[in-house]
């Protein structure tokens, strides 16, 4: 099939990437359109468009020029789609009253307009993020940097500068923080309380904080540090400062530390600092089996365990949920499917699944592999359970994060549903601030009408009753769609295991119960 590619440049026209992606999807859904992308003309975006075959010959554009690229079945369809896109771009932006409101163009002007400002939330494209963070630090602002694709050298120099000034540099690639009740980026509405969280992983922090909040415990602050803070190059600069801050915080009685396994030198430094604290700690280095902990700290191998050890007194998460019993109640499956397919929006939830499935004797592989698990690219990954992090860079280049736009998962989900080798599909659903307004409804629509012998769908919902999507309402929507919902991601993994253990005759799930 021949495709017609049409390009147009709008000079000096900036829209944020989420707005552009929404528009791109709208245009791409028009009749006769194969693909459509509206992107700012940065070098990296141009490369993406070129690789996607969306650029027709030489395109001369700069970072603040908007590229409209349309691939269609005919020239007429392409022109119609382009006209549609132009019209959408020219739609008046929320028509306020006659007087155009002034907004500062720079951090400098914003600080002049709001002298009390003390924190910058930065989510601009990665190539510009470090410079903006530097401006914020120069003006005495703490920084939460949601942006990723920032070099480790920039991260180090920003964190060093922040440390000099006594400022918290949260991120880059920091998805979650809650400071004094303010949800920064992706976060949930939680009970306020006396547990502080330091998280190098956004969804790890969300899962633990939500499990605690739903169990009746409150959170004082959740400080994000960014996924690379505990690497050797960074040395845990922000983690150490966060420990100092929570140690001194009279509102915090207990601290939970969540990270991927740190570099050994960094682990030593951080745990040494934990040992000098007067407060009890729960440490979860997800993917590590143990760590050399000081007496005031306890180790957790999973997020669920981190929540339970923090609750203490033998209090457990998930009440009476019994994975084996739930598995036994599900109808038996005829065909000899074996594999578990995990399709995750949350990176740490993906890591936790690998930990639990591997511990349960499954052979797993992942695109975001924890230590000891092969990467998809490696030969031994063949035939293993595939645990996919759909929020990883390779899936989000030029697309929104699956927590913002759950449709990012649709294609992989449909493929897994139709795959005769897949027995169980393991899913997460993250709700709260920043997340999609109703991800459960979206998921339910995608899996509706699946075949009778389709794989079992097992999910968990990371969120709280206080979130605007309301956790229980999301669970009900999933259950109505025939998806089995577990009380936590760890429980969902247990159920996947129970459905797979030593049984060639897989339990079957019938869609029409």
């Amino acid at each position, binding site marked *: 099939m021949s495709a017609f590619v049409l390009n147009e440049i709008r000079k000096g026209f900036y829209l944020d990437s989420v707005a552009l992606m929404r528009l791109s999807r709208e245009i791409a859904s028009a009749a006769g359109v194969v693909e459509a992308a509206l992107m700012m003309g940065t070098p990296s975006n141009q490369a993406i468009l070129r690789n996607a075959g969306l650029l027709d010959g030489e395109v001369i554009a700069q970072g603040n020029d908007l590229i409209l690229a349309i691939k269609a079945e005919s020239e007429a369809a392409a022109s119609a789609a382009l006209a549609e896109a132009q019209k959408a771009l020219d739609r008046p932006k929320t028509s306020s009253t006659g007087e155009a409101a002034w907004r500062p163009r720079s951090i400098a002007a914003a600080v002049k307009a709001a002298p009390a400002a003390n924190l910058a939330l930065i989510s*601009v494209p990665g190539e510009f993020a470090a410079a903006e963070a530097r401006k914020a630090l120069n003006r005495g602002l703490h920084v939460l940097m949601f942006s990723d694709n920032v070099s480790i050298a920039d991260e180090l120099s920003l964190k060093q500068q922040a440390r000099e000034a006594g*400022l918290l540099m949260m991120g880059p690639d920091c998805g979650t923080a809650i400071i004094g009740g303010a949800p920064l980026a992706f976060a949930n509405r939680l009970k306020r309380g006396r547990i502080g969280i330091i998280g190098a992983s956004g969804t790890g922090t969300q899962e633990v904080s939500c499990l605690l909040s739903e169990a009746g415990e409150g959170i004082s602050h959740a400080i994000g540090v960014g996924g690379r803070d505990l690497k050797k190059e960074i040395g845990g600069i922000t983690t150490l400062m966060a420990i100092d801050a929570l140690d001194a915080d009279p509102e915090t009685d207990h601290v939970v530390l969540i990270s991927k396994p740190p570099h050994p030198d960094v682990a030593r430094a951080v745990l040494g600092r934990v040992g000098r604290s007067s407060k009890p700690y729960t440490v979860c280095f997800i993917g590590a089996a143990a760590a050399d902990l000081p007496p005031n700290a306890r180790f957790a191998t999973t997020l669920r365990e981190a929540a339970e050890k923090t609750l203490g007194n033998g209090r457990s998460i998930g009440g009476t949920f019994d994975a084996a019993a739930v598995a036994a109640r599900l109808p038996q499956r005829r065909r000899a499917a074996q594999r578990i397919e995990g399709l995750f929006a949350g990176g740490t939830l993906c890591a936790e699944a690998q930990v639990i499935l591997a511990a349960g004797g499954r052979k797993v592989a992942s695109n975001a592999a924890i230590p000891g698990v092969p990467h998809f690219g490696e030969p031994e990954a063949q035939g293993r359970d595939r645990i996919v992090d759909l929020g990883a860079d390779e899936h989000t280049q030029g697309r929104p994060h699956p927590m913002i736009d759950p449709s990012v998962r649709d294609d992989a989900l449909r493929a897994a549903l139709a795959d005769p080798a897949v027995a169980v599909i393991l899913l997460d659903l993250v709700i709260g601030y920043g997340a999609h307004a109703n991800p459960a409804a979206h998921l339910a629509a995608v899996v509706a009408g699946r075949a009778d012998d389709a794989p079992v769908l097992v999910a968990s919902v990371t969120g709280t009753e206080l979130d605007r999507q309301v956790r229980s309402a999301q669970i009900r929507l999933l259950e109505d769609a025939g998806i089995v919902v577990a009380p936590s991601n760890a429980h969902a993994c247990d159920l996947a295991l129970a459905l797979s253990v030593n049984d060639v005759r897989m339990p079957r799930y019938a869609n029409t119960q």
Partner: protein
Amino acid sequence: MVIKQEGTPSGRLLMSKPSVVNVGLAGFVKDLRDCDIEVVQVDWTPPADGDPKMAALLAKLGT
């Protein structure tokens, strides 16, 4: 290295209500305002018309 925290800015951040400058995704602003957090949204465009070399030079010159 144990720092007395009360006086440091990072300690103070936890003790006061944040006041936020949002640079980037506009969606975060509404969430913060719903929580009664003051936010100034920066009408951000790529600095130096999207020229990364110029932006880096300006950063060194201290804007």
